[in-house]
């Protein structure tokens, strides 16, 4: 699969007319050397840099975020530009990193934490569930924690065990967290800026396998805010509801489906919490058929919530049950087998075929 072309197609599919800005106007101009075509990794890097330039309260911390620029280079050059006080290589301890960020936020800073891989955020889950998600609430709004936790997530990059977990369900089922996940280069920039600007804690899930996909991109162009889903492709038969790492495969499936006579819409959720019931239900009601696609395991996955709430709200508009195409209910397999686990075009189209077209 060609990441670049998929991302470009995705970007093209976005509807500019409905876009509006939530990203604060940067106090300093965006990186002047910004090329017009960049990878998602570069867009994330620019978002961090621009956020740090715009607001001295923004601090980055994590493992290897300094000289190395992070194992995915998302923090490349930040220590060089802002110094180690602003972009800090921490000791190797995720609970310590997030707990320290909590204290920094209590003081008034706006920390951006990098977790190196999905599964390596698990040591920090107590801090996340018991403090980050709850602090504003437990202090009656007096101690908000404007922390962004960046987590590269999901598989498809040939990673060994513990490097490919699609762990979003742990976050989406925790009240008090916003959960955001971009699928395009423009969203990577815009949503990360918006997440950092948010006064609430945001779990920012970065689809690893889209890091290197490139697209034309203007950092000054506004994107839809956090909390809005965007239709990446219109269609008249059914809608594929997806997010993050699975957007490209859904767009590809929609392309292939044409040959089978289906005109599939593709909806990119962009934000899992808060959920955009309005947009999702509008699309589902108009089409009557929907498939939710994500690579995380199905049982108890975020797709269950999506299917359940869409059904609750659109029951009489549905011609068929909302189906789910997800990873299997297994620990992430070794890299040589991962393509069998991840939803592919065929598996998605098999589900579309089961949408009871006969009636």
């Amino acid at each position, binding site marked *: 699969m060609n990441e670049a072309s998929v991302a470009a197609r995705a970007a093209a599919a976005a509807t500019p007319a409905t876009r509006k800005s939530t990203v604060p106007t940067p106090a300093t101009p965006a990186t002047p050397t910004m090329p017009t075509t960049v990878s998602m990794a570069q867009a994330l890097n620019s978002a961090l840099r621009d956020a740090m330039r715009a607001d001295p309260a923004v601090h980055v911390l994590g493992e290897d975020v300094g000289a190395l620029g992070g194992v995915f280079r998302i923090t490349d050059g930040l220590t060089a530009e802002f*110094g180690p006080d602003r972009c800090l290589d921490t*000791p190797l301890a995720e609970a310590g990193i997030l707990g320290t*960020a909590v204290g920094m936020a209590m003081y008034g800073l706006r920390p951006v934490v990098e977790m190196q891989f999905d599964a390596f955020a698990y040591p920090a889950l107590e801090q996340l569930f018991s403090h980050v998600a709850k602090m504003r609430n437990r202090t009656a709004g007096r101690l908000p924690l404007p922390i962004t936790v960046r987590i590269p997530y999901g598989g498809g990059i040939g990673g060994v065990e513990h490097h490919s977990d699609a762990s979003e369900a742990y976050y989406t089922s925790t009240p008090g967290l916003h959960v955001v996940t971009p699928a395009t280069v423009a969203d990577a920039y815009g949503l990360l800026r918006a997440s950092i600007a948010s006064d609430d804690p945001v779990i920012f899930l970065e689809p690893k396998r889209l890091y290197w996909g490139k697209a034309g991109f203007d950092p000054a162009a506004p994107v839809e805010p956090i909390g809005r889903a965007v239709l990446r492709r219109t269609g008249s038969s059914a809608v594929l509801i997806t997010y993050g790492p699975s957007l490209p495969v859904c767009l590809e499936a929609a392309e292939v489906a044409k040959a089978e006579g289906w005109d599939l819409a593709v909806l990119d959720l962009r934000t899992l919490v808060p959920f955009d019931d309005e947009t999702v239900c509008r699309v589902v009601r108009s089409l009557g058929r929907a498939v939710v696609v994500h690579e995380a395991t199905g049982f108890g996955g975020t797709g269950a919530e999506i299917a359940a709430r869409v059904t609750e709200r659109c029951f009489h508009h549905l011609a068929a049950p909302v189906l789910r195409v997800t990873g299997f209910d297994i620990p992430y397999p070794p890299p040589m087998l991962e393509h069998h686990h991840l939803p592919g075009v065929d598996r998605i189209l098999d589900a579309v075929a089961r949408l009871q077209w006969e009636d």
Partner: protein
Amino acid sequence: MTVLDHRHHTAVPGWLPGATAPRTDPAPLLPDVSPVRVLGTPALEKYDPALLRELYRRLVVGRRYNQQATTLTKQGRLAVYPASTGQEACQVAAALALGEQDWLFPSYRDTLAVVSRGVDPLEALTLLRGNAHTGYDPRAVRTAPLCTPLATQAPHAVGLAHAARLGGEPVVALALLGDGGTSEGDFHEALNFAAVLQAPVVFLVQNNGYAISVPLTAQSAAPTLAHKAVGYGIPGRLVDGNDAPAVHSVLTEAVERARAGGGPTLVEALTYRIEAHTNADDATRYRDDTEVAAWREHDPILLMERALRELGVLDDTLVQDAADEAEALAARMRAEFHADAELDPMSMFTHVFAEPTPQLREQADQLAAELAAEAEVGHR
């Protein structure tokens, strides 16, 4: 100026053979194995009598606070109370060792330290009364919420202290922990972060001998808990936790060293939990009364009163004044806690996020409708 410049990734000093001298000299980090003690020793004479009287007064008030809170549980006015009875010297000294700009990071057992810092008992006790999670404004009183998940407040103290240092403010953070809490990973990670960042933070472990039912011997095999400091490259100090002036002076020294850029300190205070873990606990299951009796002899207030009278800085009037203030506080607590707490169920939705999500708005509407229906029924 870059605060963390010294951490720049240049060469790796000291790791080529022939250059394996330690990065820090361990000797000054090691605690003296006999705890610092001043009550009953000539050292006490060097203390400011005003400070000693202040400590005494606060101890007496603190004890009464503990007793009154315990009584309130029996009357059902507090849901639960983890008393610091017997540990008042640590509680009071911790509060007094901090300046107004400093931050306290208390655990669930440390409401007396919070009250000693000036927070009204009604606000300090909402968690344990059950009407609200945190009753005070942490920023206003520079006191973090009472922390229940053990040791999780320790990295918060580090982060806050680090941020203040980056901001150029002379703020010190003091984290209160129990002996049991030292076993948690968060304790370790916090101390290591503090040491590496040279953050202005002090960790006070109130070693009261038990984590609920588990005695220290089943918690740690360390010579003392203060010995843990050396593994992080920071100084460890051991102090008699029932000796208020000693705790105060050890903490003050640590706080001032931190403020001056000298980095963190780990202080272990040896004390004892006279009451059960909370009113819900049955301490007879795991310890003998004889043990408690022995510690009652080493009571922080008893020790203090005896020593101060001997030193001639305490007389019957001051003792009476302290007792009166204590009674006044107790009376106020009775009055305040016997009134029913004001509750607003809709507040459950107000502070989940800065702005309620559409989903929360729907749910709030649902609850509001339910409450209206109930009121309707009640009305009829």
